[in-house]
């Protein structure tokens, strides 16, 4: 029987005012498992979750209430509970980004892995949760590689970076100009920084704000009066000011493009009202995208993600079943049976590849089976005499009994 339990306080069931008060780490759970059991905690801006084996649900809720200072009733109303296969399924869904606010977002997997590293360091996870978490990592990897869920960007900032990559050979060498120091422009600039852009210039009507953002992003602040000169020099422009009138006009850009000798540039205008006159997009080699154009592209990607949802769920079902199969195999008899099946498979394959006739093959197979059974006799006897979970798990890991043939042999 699957012993995993889970409590989840997430964006579906709890508002941000409640979520922001909960911050539970794996180290906090150490006290709970002093008497035995396993525990793992995950806290992100959209969720706080605790997974456990061999603990009482009430003890976990009490601990969260104490740590967050929330009333027990309030907390009980805001939690989602999962147990057994449903808890493992939920973990896989979370790791794959299928339970995220932005469907399929990849950051959550990194956060889960980081929390797992912390759990391993605190020694709070054990046989069951280690296996469940590795299953979840595998499920997330498969969902990303086998479905379209994570294929296309679904944030305006990421899409802007993607578009720039289709125009310029190497974004890292591009000169980026950020006009305005608003949130959206900052996010887009950060994405470009993540991609390795080294030349980042920031322009703002309030020079102090430009300097602050430049400091944050390791860029260079420029005076707003130099707008035209900066446009001539830059390849990627992100603009998001609070101006009521367009700050980049067609006349200005005509001159800029002449001075650039037609060299291409991309302007991402994420301001509302727009900072750039729409006619600018008709200029030769000037690619202009406003917030609506980007949102239209992003919405299409959301639709693609939704279409891949069934495929992703099927992968998760498969991984949950594999975990259940592993749980059932955690007995001495099942492990010995799997061990002999593995050896019989080896003997059969080896005999088939070496023998020249059917008679020779049968004889060789018998001979190999005899030798392998003798070889296995001692570990099998040891396992029968010491049938602890730990020994069973080591045997299964040592002989890689839970992976399929291709997994075992891919190095």
């Amino acid at each position, binding site marked *: 029987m699957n012993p995993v339990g889970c409590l989840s306080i997430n964006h579906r069931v709890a508002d941000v005012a409640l979520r922001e008060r909960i911050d539970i780490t794996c180290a906090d759970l150490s006290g709970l498992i002093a008497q035995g059991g396993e525990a793992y905690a995950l806290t992100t801006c959209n969720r706080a979750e605790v997974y456990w084996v061999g603990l009482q649900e009430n003890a976990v809720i009490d601990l969260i209430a104490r740590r967050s200072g929330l009333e027990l009733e309030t907390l009980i109303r805001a939690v989602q509970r999962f147990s057994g296969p449903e808890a493992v399924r939920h973990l896989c869904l979370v790791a794959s980004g299928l339970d995220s606010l932005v469907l399929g977002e990849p950051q959550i997997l990194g956060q889960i892995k980081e929390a797992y590293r912390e759990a391993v360091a605190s020694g709070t996870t054990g046989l069951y949760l280690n296996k469940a978490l590795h299953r979840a990592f595998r499920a997330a990897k498969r969902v990303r590689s086998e479905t379209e869920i994570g294929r296309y960007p679904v944030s305006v900032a990421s899409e802007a970076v993607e578009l720039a990559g*289709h*125009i*310029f050979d190497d974004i890292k060498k591009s000169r980026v100009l950020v006009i305005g120091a608003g949130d959206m422009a900052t996010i887009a600039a950060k994405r470009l920084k993540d991609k390795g852009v080294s030349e980042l210039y920031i322009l703002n009507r309030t020079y102090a704000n430009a300097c602050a953002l430049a400091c944050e992003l390791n860029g260079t602040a420029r005076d707003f009066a130099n707008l035209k000169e900066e446009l001539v020099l830059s390849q990627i422009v992100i603009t998001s000011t609070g101006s009521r009138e367009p700050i980049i006009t067609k006349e200005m850009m005509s001159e800029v493009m002449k001075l650039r000798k*037609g060299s291409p540039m991309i302007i991402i205008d994420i301001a509302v009202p727009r900072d750039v006159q729409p006619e600018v997009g008709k200029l030769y080699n000037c690619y202009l995208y406003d917030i609506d154009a980007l949102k239209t592209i992003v919405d299409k990607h959301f639709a693609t993600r939704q279409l891949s949802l069934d495929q992703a769920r099927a992968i998760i079902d498969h991984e949950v079943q594999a975990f259940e199969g592993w749980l059932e195999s955690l007995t001495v008899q099942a492990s010995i049976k799997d061990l002999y099946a593995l050896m019989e498979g080896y003997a059969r394959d080896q005999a088939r590849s070496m023998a020249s006739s059917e008679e020779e093959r049968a004889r060789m197979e018998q001979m190999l089976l005899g030798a392998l059974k003798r070889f296995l006799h001692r570990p099998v006897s040891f396992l029968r005499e010491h049938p602890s979970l730990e020994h069973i798990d080591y045997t299964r890991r040592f002989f890689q009994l839970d992976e399929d043939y291709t997994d075992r042999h891919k190095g």
Partner: protein
Amino acid sequence: MTAVVVLYSLTGLVFILDVFMRAPRLALAGRGLLAASALAHLGVIMLLGLKMRALPLTSLPQALNMMILCATLIFIPLTLGRKTTTLGAFYSPAAAFILALISPQAGLSRDVIPPTQLWYPLHTMAVIIGEAMFIVATVASLAYLIHEHLIRKGLIHAMGEDLPPLTILDKVLMHSMSTGFVAITLGMLFGGFWAAASGIALGDIAVKIFAGAMTWAVFALGIHQRYAVGWMGRRTALITVCGFGITVLAVALFWGMYPYPPVPGMAP
């Protein structure tokens, strides 16, 4: 020759599948097949040359055959680049199509007299390299126009995911145009020396001069507009595609009238 056409067709199919399925193995197979096509093509041309005991450049189909081989040799390193692999999907089907059209006439020519003038092979090879560069420039231009359209319409993820970035395509276009321009210019000069040394009247090779001048003019216009006026990208690509279209039309129109090395005492 049929085997070569089949190989090129297969290469084109694999590269096109790669564009839609984005499987690294398909790209690898496409590159391998393109190399195999080039080897087989080279083998066929060498066999023909051995049979003729001369450079197999005695007719327009043979020249086109050689031109395709040259273009393939230029495309092999291009398809090795991660960002330019998809150019193979544009080039290989076109190469297969042209080879299928000319293969019945690209074989052994009757009444072949190997040219005695050194200027002739120099002229022909220079022109062939120039025309092969013209093919490369046209393929890069087509890819540029398609990719730019997809970027402007916001359809990059639907179809243009693996198309090379515009600046790379522009670089390929300009490098091939610059090299092609030098080659064609040299080709025209060598051709003039050959005609003068062989005592050929200009009127007899008017068609040849027209086709060469056409390509030269397209290259010259493209390069001038690119460097002097700043027509980076789309406009240069359009000039190249239109120029290529007109050249193909001219070649098709004057197919039977295209002169090749003259038999002594006869008009070319």
